[in-house]
């Protein structure tokens, strides 16, 4: 896990909306932002694994971020985007797409404006949150991609009724 922490070092964060709530991830992870494109569902996976898609000839997995955070599966609209993330999963450089409802902008967040995520009272799991930040009088949840992209949880295959 140490190899991906450097992606957390910068102070720039890409913000986006999920179910009208604002979240952000460190731009160190972001490779590109593309329009929502056709996704092929992969059977027997958990519902927040949207499937796979073709990005420049590579087949990459796509995660429904809202679903993963427990906020319910995304409603795809014209503003829906896929942010492609570069990360190391099980020692392998991997590209993963995440679906967001709408991309907002990149914020410079001064470390002094960051604060610990609340101990309780948040509807998303604590290990998905890195920090909270106050930007323009609003709170943004800075997401922890390590927890979100945990391979053990992502790769879990759902139980099929016949097996």
């Amino acid at each position, binding site marked *: 896990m140490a190899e991906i922490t450097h992606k957390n070092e910068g102070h720039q964060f890409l913000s986006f909306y999920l179910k009208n709530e604002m979240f952000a991830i460190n731009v160190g992870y972001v490779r590109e932002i593309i329009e929502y494109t056709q996704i*092929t569902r992969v059977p*027997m*996976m958990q519902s927040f694994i949207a499937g*796979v898609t073709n990005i420049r*000839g590579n087949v*990459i997995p796509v995660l429904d971020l809202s679903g993963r955070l427990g906020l319910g599966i995304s409603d795809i609209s014209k503003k829906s985007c896929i942010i492609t993330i570069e990360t190391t*999963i099980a020692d392998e450089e991997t590209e993963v797409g995440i679906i967001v409802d709408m991309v907002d902008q990149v914020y410079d967040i001064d470390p002094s404006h960051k604060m610990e995520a609340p101990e309780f009272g948040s509807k998303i799991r604590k290990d998905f949150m890195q920090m909270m930040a106050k930007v323009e009088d609003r709170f943004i949840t800075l997401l922890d991609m390590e927890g979100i992209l945990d391979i053990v949880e992502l*790769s879990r295959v759902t139980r099929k009724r016949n*097996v």
Partner: protein
Amino acid sequence: MSSGMNFSDIAKEFREESLELLEAMETSLMSIRENGMDDEMINAVFRAAHTIKGAAGMYKLDFVVGFTHIAENLLDQVRNGKIEMTDELGELLLECKDHMQNLVEFAVATNNEEAPTTELTDTTARLGEALCTTLGEEMHHHGGETSKAAIEVCADKNWTMKLSFAREVMEQGFEPASFLAHLRKNSTAFESHVDTSAVPLMEELEPTACYVTFDISFTTGLSREDILDVFEFIRDDTTILLSEAVAEVKPAALAQTANKEEPKKISAQSANTQVQAQNAYTIRVDAEKIDQLINQIGEMVIANANVVQQSIDMKNGELIESVSIVSRMLEDIRESAMQIRMVQIGETFNRFKRIVMDLSKKLGKDIELVIKGAETELDKTVTEKITDPLVHIIRNAIDHGIEMPSDRGSKSAKGTLTLNAYHDAGTVVIEITDDGKGLDDEMLYRKAIEKGLIEEGAHLSQQEIFKLILEPGFSTAPAVTDLSGRGVGMDVVKRNIEALRGNIEIKSRVGEGTSFIIRLPLTLAIIDGFLVKVGETFYVIPLDMVVECIELSDREKEEMHGNNYINLRGTILPLLNVGDLFDEQKTADARANIVVVHYAGRRYGFIVDELFGEFQTVIKPLGKIFADLHGISGSTILGSGKVALILDVPMLVSYILSFKGGSDEMKSA
């Protein structure tokens, strides 16, 4: 030879080349053992040793050179018929080959910065002594001194040499003096005269050109080949006149000149070198480059599929025609590119001869290895990954399968182990069969309960019981030997084969023997696929496995009465409803189709919605997130840019076979 050469830069290449040569050495030695002495074979062994010594010498791997040199001397004597090749000598040479391999591996692992371990020097001393005894020579020194002692085995001779380097030698980055320095280092006496008569006047002088020639007389224990090898890198452009200064009747000179008529090769050995050069016209290419090429062709196949689709949409006859020509050519190119990766399995099989020989000797068993289908081709990556599992199976067969000669009853005292390979329906089948005591399913069953692998009273088919031996922690050997029986190994077999998308079947009869039947995909990169649609998703079935497609009529649906099979021309065809299994949404008006596939000698039907026909498929791995997903082996990109999923037929078949009946377990069409 030149101090500027850095070992770490070429270590990988050196290792690969040496291992290849050592493998050739083993193959030749094994062949001599089986078929008797053969000049060509012993020459090949000699050449391998010689080349390794040469390469090792270049990078100053003295402990490799020293040891290899003694072996080479002995081989030279064998080659000249002065020492007779016996089975014992063959074994000694095989042991030497192993030791050379260890030395090379050690040198590479330590970057030649460490002195060999005591274990290595001890073996060098022991084998060196054995070699020298055979040679009829006394070893004067031990251990680290071996190399010196070895070189002294060959008596010193006086040589004269006329040496003129090419003018450009320095421009090519060589330092002529370093070659001479190397020669001097290996000579007891060394005298050189420089002939400067060719040096032009100052104004015409090219400062980077080499004008001087050398007259050298020296005394050394090196052979003629060794001396010429010093100049190996620049040999093509250098004129070397080498003669032995002893007043013997011998052809005096061996001249090598560039771009001129090849001087007549006098020695038989040079002639052999030429033969070898012709036989083995191969180019060593980095596997990554081939993978890249195959990937690029794959991209092109995808792009072309798009062009085909558009040309059809445009309904332009001429365009369709042209596009189809391009498609055909692309198909050929793809085929050729895939061929590059293909190797014959024989090479791998040959490696097992040694294992069989060594093990059977150790255990006091008499076992003959029979190899069939050595010319069967499969992907190099697959061969590499299958070697380990095969070794485990073979060891097991020799250790536990085949009985001691006295226990073989009415069977011939000599056991037979057969390796067979052949192509079958887009897969490669490898069979390892022994005529040993076979597997006792009752005993295995009891043992598995004892080990807690299965529950008391569990109902298992014979095949399932046999497969228990592939489970981790399952060992039936009464005594743990150092070969097998520790319960590790056979589970590696299962794991590796599954990782290759292959499958394993075990057949056995008590008292008659056991067969391991391994099925593997031909290649890991591209397959011909058959495109179908289930719900909203496109799926690809490997075309080689598809037998036919039939429409599932309503009448037939009724006749199924909720069972999961149909009557196909008088035989029962078990069915799998892909849509149900994968929870695909049902399209209202979809007529069901059945794709009949054959796998492992049986037929199965997959129920799908729509059929689209053949499709060239570049396999794109799905990545770690989908590692636990069974039934899908990968993905591919369609002409439209959409991703289709590749069905893993072996997995789905085993899923069908897992049906044990009962309506709650079945969801029919």
